[in-house]
């Protein structure tokens, strides 16, 4: 059997629940952002995930959209986020920051005048 190339992401669980509660992709992304503030997720990402769930037949019933408000959904979704998803979210953010740090070294090296710093240090010794 060929390996699935489908991406699994930490916000998928929350997105699936929101979709089943009749939330539109844009509203769903709001809920996700409230729980995972630094997640780079938009309505388009959620829309793509919704199409995938639909094509796989994983959404059997969608409730009417007026059952629960976005605010209430945010409160409820906070309780259903698993420790696993929270950990993976932290890793995603941590890894991103770590990569940015590398670019920071490069930018600092480009902008800072090393010679000037060394000369200042030598003057201090004198």
């Amino acid at each position: 059997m060929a390996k699935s190339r489908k991406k699994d992401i930490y916000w998928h669980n929350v997105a699936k629940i929101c979709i089943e509660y009749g939330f539109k992709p844009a509203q769903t992304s709001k809920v996700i952002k409230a729980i995972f503030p630094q997640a780079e997720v938009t309505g388009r990402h959620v829309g793509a995930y919704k199409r995938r769930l639909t094509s796989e037949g994983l959404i059997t019933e969608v409730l009417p959209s007026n059952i629960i408000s976005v605010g209430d959904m945010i409160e409820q979704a906070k309780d259903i986020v698993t420790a696993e998803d929270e950990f993976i979210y932290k890793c995603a953010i941590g890894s991103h920051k770590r990569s940015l740090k590398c670019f920071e070294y490069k930018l600092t090296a480009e902008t800072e005048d090393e010679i000037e710093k060394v000369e200042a240090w030598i003057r201090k010794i004198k």
Partner: protein
Amino acid sequence: MSEKSTLEELFDRSIDGDRDIDDETISTYESAEREDDSHAEPIVEDEPVVHIPTVISKLKGSVDIPEEFKFTDDTTFYSMLRNIYRGKSILVTGPSGCGKSSLGKILAEITDKPFHAFNFGDTMNPSAKLLGDTKFDKDKGTWFKPSRFVSALRDERGSFIMLDEVTRDRTGDLANILMPVLDGQRYLALDESEDADTVKIDDGAFFFATANIGREYLGASHDLDRAWKDRFTGGIYELEYLPRQKEKDLLMIRNPNLKDIDANHITDFAERVRALYKADELNTSVSTRMCLTASELVVDGMDLLEALKMTCLPFYPITAGDDTERVRVIQTIQAMGE
């Protein structure tokens, strides 16, 4: 009528020939067909493949490999994160200066866990380092001050505990104290009495140990104690020095002002020395840390060959003769200038 005709064919012929078939013939054919069917492979309908997300598939989908983790493959990175999540201790082995401790720091930062490092290369008394010490106060009298390690074990945020250079302890105390910490018991006894206070290790605590393995570090045995290895349920990762191109990338990332040609020479030199080490012609090798030091010297204006000599030669003994390890390393350095 052929012997292998089916009941269906029999009916067809009977219609064409306008002949009746008696019940006995039909039942004979039916039982023969049932027997044939019993030998046939059962027809199984394809079940839809249900995709089930796993910890590793979610990590792969969500977490990008940071730039500095270039030196290992994807599986190492994601399985290490999985082990941190599951609280499975890991041991990272490899030659000195290949990036084991750096890896620990990067992982702690990525997972946003409180980082506590304990280096056993700088201790004469592992039990004081791990358990604590007895102090005296003129008002309180004698009292026990728990170690930093004890606080790390108790940290409710789930510490990332780096046990650096565990093979440097020659007393054997370190292994004895850490055994119940690393195995399923997950406690630390503060002394050896029967009613000793024990420290319960927080469920989120994760242990990342590093060790140098090789003839120049462990002597004749070249390997770690089996009991040590068994305690690292997340597995043992054997790191090697970086392949040349990746090492060059790393030098350039850490020293953006390093010239491409110098980075090439430094990594070429390291590769040649490592080949000599592998061929048992040298007793120790050139580490990535040494390459980084040499490249920093070059960036600050030192001549490349001088930088290599200054960084590497002290690791090779001064002995008489023209075929010593030091002479071979000097020749390799000089070859970089040609």
